[in-house]
C-alpha cells in the first residue's frame, strides 16, 4: 500500500551502472566470495585454518616423531632453542640445536636440562625418522622436518611427563580436536535442517510441539548435561566409538539452535513474494524447497555452522580436560591439557600449556571466518 519509493532504487542502480558485465552476471556465490574477500581478518583466518587442517590430514608426515614413543631420559625436557650461530660466533645457514644433557639438582632431585654446546645437531627438511603408515596406507619414514640424525630428538615445543614429544602430540591431537567440531556440526546440521525445516514447512501443531521440545532442550544446562551423558560411555570402548558418541553428545545441544535458525528463515522466506510466485508458477513443494528456499538460506546457514564449530571444539576440550571425554591413549588437545592440571609440574614445565594456544587460535580463526561469512552471506542485504 505504501509507496516505498526508497533508497534501494538508487543503490541498485549504482550497482548496475558502475559495475561491468562481470558483476551483472555474478551469481550469489560469486558475490558472497567477493564480499568475504573484503574481510581481511576472515581471509587470514581461513588461511590459518587451512594450514591447521592440512597439518591434521598429514599428521604422520608433519610430526617429526611417533606420538607414543617415549624417552624416559627426556621427561619434561624444555623446548630446544633453534640456533643459527654456534658458540664460536659463526653463522650457519642451516639451523641447528644442541642436545640436552640431563643432570639432577642436588637438593631437590629435580631434573635439569643443559644444552651441550659441544655438539651441533643440524635440522633438515624431509629427514628420515620413525616409520609410519600415512592414513594406514602408505608406509614411509620421511618426515617434513626434524634433526638429520635420526636417533637424536628435536624438542620443538618441549617433552611431556613421560618424555613424549609435545609438538608431535599436538599435531596428532589436532586430528581429533579439529574434526570433532566438523563431524558434530555436520550432524547438528542434518538434524537441524530436517527438524527445523519440518517445523517451518508444516507449521501448526507439529511446529508447536517441536518448538516446545527445542525450548526444553535449550533450558538444560549444557555442560552438566554433557558431563552426565559422557559418563554413560564405558571407559573400555575403542577410541573411534567414544569419539562418535562424544560427537553425538555434543550435537544434542547444537542442533537446536540450527533448527531454530532454519525455521525462522523458512518462515521469513515463505513470506517473500518470489516464493509465492514460484508456487503460483506451479512449482512443486520439492522444487520450491530445493530451488528457492534452500539456496536462499544456505549461505546464511553455513555462516552459522562455522560459528557453531568452535563450541564443539571447546566442548570436547573441556570434557577431555576433566577426564570425562576422550581418554588416553587417544590424543586430543583436551587430553593433552589433562596432563597440565598439576600446578607444580606446570610451574616448572609451562610448555605443557601450549595446546591452549592451538585451541585459542583455531577457535578465534573459526569465529573470524564465521563472522566474515555471516557478513557476506546475504549479498543482497544492501539492495
Amino acid at each position, binding site marked *: 500500500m505504501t509507496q516505498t519509493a526508497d533508497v534501494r532504487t538508487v543503490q541498485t542502480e549504482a550497482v548496475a551502472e558502475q559495475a561491468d558485465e562481470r558483476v551483472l*552476471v555474478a551469481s550469489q556465490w560469486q558475490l558472497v566470495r567477493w564480499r568475504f574477500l573484503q574481510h581481511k581478518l576472515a581471509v587470514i583466518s581461513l588461511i590459518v585454518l587451512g594450514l591447521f587442517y592440512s597439518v591434521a590430514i598429514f599428521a604422520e608426515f608433519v610430526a617429526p616423531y611417533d606420538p607414543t614413543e617415549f624417552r624416559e631420559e627426556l621427561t619434561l625436557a624444555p623446548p630446544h632453542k633453534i640456533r643459527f650461530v654456534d658458540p664460536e660466533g659463526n653463522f650457519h645457514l642451516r639451523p641447528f640445536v644442541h642436545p640436552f644433557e640431563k643432570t639432577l639438582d642436588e637438593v631437590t632431585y629435580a631434573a635439569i636440562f643443559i644444552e651441550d654446546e659441544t655438539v651441533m645437531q643440524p635440522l633438515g627438511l624431509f629427514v628420515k625418522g620413525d616409520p609410519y603408515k600415512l592414513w594406514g596406507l602408505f608406509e614411509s619414514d620421511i618426515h617434513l622436518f626434524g634433526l638429520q640424525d635420526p636417533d637424536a630428538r628435536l624438542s620443538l615445543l618441549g617433552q611431556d611427563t613421560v618424555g613424549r614429544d609435545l609438538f608431535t602430540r599436538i599435531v596428532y591431537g589436532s586430528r581429533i580436536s579439529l574434526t570433532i567440531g566438523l563431524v558434530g556440526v555436520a550432524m547438528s546440521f542434518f538434524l537441524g535442517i530436517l527438524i527445523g525445516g519440518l517445523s517451518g514447512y508444516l507449521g501448526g501443531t507439529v511446529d508447536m510441539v517441536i518448538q516446545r521440545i527445542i525450548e526444553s532442550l535449550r533450558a538444560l544446562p549444557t555442560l552438566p548435561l554433557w558431563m552426565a551423558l559422557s559418563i554413560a560411555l564405558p571407559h573400555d570402548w575403542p577410541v573411534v566409538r567414544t569419539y562418535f558418541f562424544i560427537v553425538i553428545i555434543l550435537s544434542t545441544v547444537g542442533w537446536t539452535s540450527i533448527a531454530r535458525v532454519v525455521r525462522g528463515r523458512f518462515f521469513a522466506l515463505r513470506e517473500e*513474494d518470489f516464493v509465492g510466485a514460484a508456487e503460483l508458477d506451479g*512449482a512443486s513443494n520439492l522444487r520450491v524447497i530445493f530451488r528457492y528456499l534452500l539456496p536462499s538460506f544456505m549461505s546464511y546457514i553455513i555462516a552459522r555452522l562455522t560459528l557453531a564449530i568452535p563450541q564443539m571444539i571447546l566442548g570436547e576440550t573441556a570434557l577431555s580436560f576433566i577426564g570425562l571425554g576422550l581418554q588416553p591413549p587417544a590424543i586430543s588437545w583436551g587430553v593433552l591439557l589433562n596432563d597440565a592440571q598439576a600446578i607444580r609440574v606446570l610451574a616448572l614445565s609451562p610448555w605443557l600449556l601450549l595446546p591452549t594456544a592451538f585451541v585459542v587460535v583455531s577457535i578465534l580463526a573459526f569465529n573470524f571466518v564465521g563472522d566474515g561469512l555471516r557478513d557476506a552471506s546475504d549479498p543482497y542485504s544492501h539492495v
Partner: protein
Amino acid sequence: MTDAIQPAGRGDRAIISVRNLVKYFPIESGLLRRQVGLVKAVDDVSFDLNDGETLALVGESGCGKTTTSHCIIQAQRPTAGEVHFRIGDTRPVDLTKMEKADLKKARRNIRMIYQDPYSSLNPRMTLLQIIGEPLKIHGQVKSQDELRARVSDLLRLVRLDPSTLNRYPHAFSGGQRQRIAIARALSLSPKVVIADEAVSALDVSVQAQILNLLKELQRELGLTYLFVAHNLAVVKYEADRVAVMYAGKIVEIGETEELYTCPKHPYTEALISAAPNPDPDTKNRPRIVLTGDVADPGNLPGGCSFHPRCRYAEDLCKQETPPLMELSAAGEPSHQSACHFADRLSLAGIGAAELTTDRDAA
C-alpha cells in the same frame, strides 16, 4: 441479496465471475489459541471480470482488495464463495473447488504481478531462469535453445534488451525489475493478469512507463487485467471499470468515467475528493476530509461499515447493511452502489465545481 445482481456483469463476456467470496481470518489469543474474533478481510464480494477489460479494485489499506485478488488465484483459499473461470465457450470451472493439479493448469491462464519488484524476483536466479521457470515447470520448452529463444522474445516484449538474460536481478533498477516480473507473468501466454499494486513502489516517471507498457501489452495480446491499486489517478488512467472496496466489501462498481464523474457512494466521493491533484488551480476547492481511520476489519461497526465516517449517515445506516444495488437502467452500462441512499444523494465527482456541504442534502 446478491442474487439480485447475478447477471450484473452482463455475464456472457465474463472470463472470471466471483460470487459471494468470503475470506475470514481467525483472531487467536492465549495459550490454547482460542478464537476470540474474526478479521473479515473479504466479506461477500461478487463481481465479473470481462474478457479483455481492465477492472480495478481500489481502496485503502486493509480494505481487502489484495486478499480478494489472492483468493481469485487461490494463493489463499477463500472461506466461502465461488470463483468461476471460463475461456471462450468452454464450461466455467470453479477455482475454489479445484485440486492442485487442475489448479496448476488453470493458473497458466491467470498470472500475477506483485507490488515489490525487489521481493518478487529471486535474487539468486538469472533472468533466463526467472522468466523461463514457468515454461520449464509446465513443460512448454523442449531444449535449452528453445528456452533461450522464448525468454529473449519475452524480454523484447517488455522492451528489455535480450542480451541481458544472463544477468541477475541485482543488475536492474526498480522499473526494469517490474518489466522482468511482467515478462515472467506473460511467459505462459495467460488470459488474465492480476496486477497487485504493480506500480505503487515505482517513481513517477517509471510508473508512467509501466502503466503504458501494460496498456500496450493488453492491446497486443488481448489480455484481461485485474488491477489492484490505491492510487485513484492511476486507476482512472488504467482501468475500464472500477470496483471501490471498503472494509472487505465492494461499495461501488461501475465504468471508470461514470464512477469518477458521478460517484454513487459517499466513500467514493470522499476518495475522489481527497486525491491530490497536480493542478494548483484546484488548490482552494472544497474537500471532503473523512474523520478517523479506516474501519478495522477485525472490529467492524454494525450496519454500513462506513457510517461512522459518513457525512450523510442516518439511523438506518447504523442498523442495516446496505446491499450492492444496480442503479443504471437496463441497456446502460452497469453501475452499482452499496448505499441506502445511493439514488437520493447527489455526490460530487471529478470536475465538480460545487461540493454539497450541506449535511442534510439527502
